C-alpha cells in the first residue's frame, strides 16, 4: 500500500482542543507542512497569541513562545534581532492582531521586520465566549452586539490586508480562506510564499486566513461555511494584496 499522506513532522502528535468545524486545525497543518517542505523546522520559532489559538504553542513541533495579548509581533522581533538567521512566525487571531495588538502589528510591519504573520480571522472573539471583534461584520450578532454590529456605535470592521499592504517594508500580503479544499490549496501556497519572502530576507509578510467559528456563530459547521461564502468573503475579498514583482 502506498502512503499518500501523513502527519507533518512539524506538527506534534497531540489532540487539538478546537471545537468541531473550527479551522485552526487546518491552518496549523498548512503552516506545519510548509515548515517541513522548506526544511526549516530546526530553526523555526513560533509565537502563539492569546485567544483560542493560544495552545498552538503546544501543537507545533518547533520551539514555541506564548505571548501576551497582541504582543506576538514585538516578541518575534526581539527573537529575530538576536537570531537573524532563524525563521519566525506569529500565529494570531483577529482579537489579538486587530484589537489589542494592532499597534505592535503596524509598527512591526513599518519596520519591515523579516517575520511572517499568520492571521486567522473568524470575525469573533472565540475563547472569551463570542464577543465582537474589530473584524465583526456590520449587522453581525455577537454577545456584545446583541442587536447586530452598528457603524454608529462600533465603527467599521478592520481589514488587515488592505491596511498593511501599502506599507513600505511589507513585501507579501494575501487573504485566503479555509472554507473548501480549493481555497485550502491556495492558502497553503500563500503561506509558503510568505515564509519564502522571509527566507529571502526581504521583509514582513502576512497571510490572512478567513475561518469560521461555528460555536460562537451558533451555526453548524456546514452552515458556517455557507455563512462565510455569503457574508464574509464579499466583505473580505480574497487575493494577493501585495507581492514583489515576479512573484505571483
Amino acid at each position, binding site marked *: 500500500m502506498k502512503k499518500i499522506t501523513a502527519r507533518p513532522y512539524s506538527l506534534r502528535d497531540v489532540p487539538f482542543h478546537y471545537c468541531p468545524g473550527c479551522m485552526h486545525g487546518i491552518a496549523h497543518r498548512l503552516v506545519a507542512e510548509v515548515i517541513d517542505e522548506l526544511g526549516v523546522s530546526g530553526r*523555526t520559532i513560533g509565537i502563539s497569541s492569546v485567544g483560542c489559538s493560544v495552545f498552538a504553542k503546544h501543537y507545533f513541533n518547533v520551539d*514555541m513562545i506564548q505571548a501576551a495579548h497582541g504582543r506576538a509581533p514585538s*516578541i518575534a522581533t526581539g527573537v529575530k534581532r538576536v537570531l537573524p538567521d532563524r525563521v519566525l512566525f506569529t500565529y494570531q487571531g483577529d482579537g489579538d492582531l486587530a484589537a489589542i495588538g494592532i499597534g505592535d502589528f503596524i509598527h512591526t510591519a513599518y519596520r519591515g521586520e523579516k517575520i511572517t504573520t499568520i492571521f486567522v480571522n473568524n470575525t469573533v472573539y472565540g475563547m472569551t465566549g463570542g464577543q465582537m471583534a474589530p473584524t465583526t461584520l456590520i449587522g453581525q450578532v455577537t454577545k456584545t452586539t446583541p442587536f447586530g454590529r452598528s457603524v454608529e456605535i462600533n465603527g467599521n470592521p478592520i481589514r488587515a490586508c488592505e491596511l498593511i499592504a501599502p506599507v513600505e517594508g511589507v513585501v507579501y500580503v494575501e487573504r485566503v480562506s479555509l472554507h473548501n479544499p480549493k481555497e485550502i490549496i491556495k492558502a497553503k501556497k500563500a503561506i509558503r510564499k510568505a515564509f519564502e519572502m522571509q527566507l529571502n530576507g526581504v521583509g514582513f509578510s502576512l497571510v490572512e486566513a478567513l475561518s469560521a467559528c461555528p460555536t460562537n456563530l451558533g451555526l453548524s459547521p456546514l452552515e458556517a461555511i455557507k455563512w462565510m461564502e455569503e457574508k464574509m468573503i464579499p466583505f473580505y475579498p480574497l487575493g494577493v494584496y501585495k507581492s514583489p514583482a515576479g512573484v505571483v
Partner: protein
Amino acid sequence: MRRFLMKGNDAIGEGAILAGCRHFFGYPITPQSEVTHYLAKRLPEIGGLFMQAESELASINLVFGAACAGARVMTASSGPGISLMQEELSFLAGSELPCVLVNIMRGGPGLGNIGPSQADYFQATKGGGHGDYHIIVLAPNSVQEILDIMKKAFDLSDMYRMPAMVLADGIMGQMMEPVVIDEEKSVEIPPRPWATTGRDYHEDRNEINSLFVILEEMEEVNLRLLHKYEEICAKETLCEEYMLDDAEVALVAFGTVSRICRAVVDKAREQGIRAGLVRPITLWPFPYDVISRTAKSVQCFLAVEMNMGQMFEDIEIGAKGRAPVYHYGRLGGMVPLAKDILEELKKVSERGGTGQ
C-alpha cells in the same frame, strides 16, 4: 583599570556593557533619557544592538523576545513607562525569563514631574503586574555602585531566571562621580538550554510559556516560584549597616537619601546622639533580618524616604513591634535636607521607644 568622571545614567549603560549585555530596547523618558543616548552610541560600536521602540509596551516585549532567544538584554525607563511595562513584567516572571530593567524614578502619580523621587517603591517591590510573583530590586547609592550593581542585576537575573530591576532616582541618574572601571574581568554568561533558539540548537523542542490552565499545574508553578523566592531571600539579601552597634536611633534609607542620612548620622554623633543607618541595597528581598536584629537594640527607627512612607511598611514588618518606626519624607520631587532630617532625628530620639 581606568578612572573616569561619569554620569549615573551613563554608568547604567556602561555597567550593562561590562556585564555582557549587547541588546537594549527602550524608549526615551526623562530623567532616564541619557541611558538611551549612551547605549545608542556605545552598543553599535561593540557589535551590539540598540533599538528604540514605539512605546514602553513594545520595548518590554522586544526584551521578552530577546530573552527568549537567550540574550542578555535590558531596558530602562521611568515611572510612567515602567507602569506600561507591568503587563509584560508579570509575563516575564511567569515565563521565568531573565532580563534587567532600570527605573530612574520621578515624581508622581500620573505624569507627575521629572524631579527625583522614590515613589515607585511599592510598584517595584510589591508586584505592579498581576499574579503571584516577585522581581529582584537593587538600589545603588553612588555612580560606582551603579556600575557594579548592573553586573549583579544581570547575574542574579540569570541565576534565578527572573527579571531584576535597578531602582534609582533622577539624582542618581544625573549626578557625576569618579568611577573605576576594571576591564580585566571577563564576563561569563551562563548557558541557556531552555531558550527558544530553534530545535537544531538544543535538545528536543523548547516552549516558553506562562499559561497553566490545569489548576494543580498552576499551583505547582506557583510553589516552584515560591521556593525560588524563599531561596533568594535567604541568600541574596544585601544591606549596608553604619554605626549600628551602639545606636539608639536607626535611620533607614536607600538610594540618594541614604547618602544624606549617612552625613546626618555623623552630625548627630558629633552632637552626642547615638544614631546609626540601615541601608537596604536589595529592596526585594528586603533585609527584614537586619531590621529585626536592630529592633532589639535601638529605641526607634526613622525611615527617611522621598515618598509618603512606602519602605516604612517593610521596616514595620521587620521591627515586629519591638521598636516604633517613624517616617520622614519629602514628596513631589523634593529631596530631604540634612538639617531637616537631623531635626526629625532629634525629635524621635526624644520620643524614643515610647511610640508616641
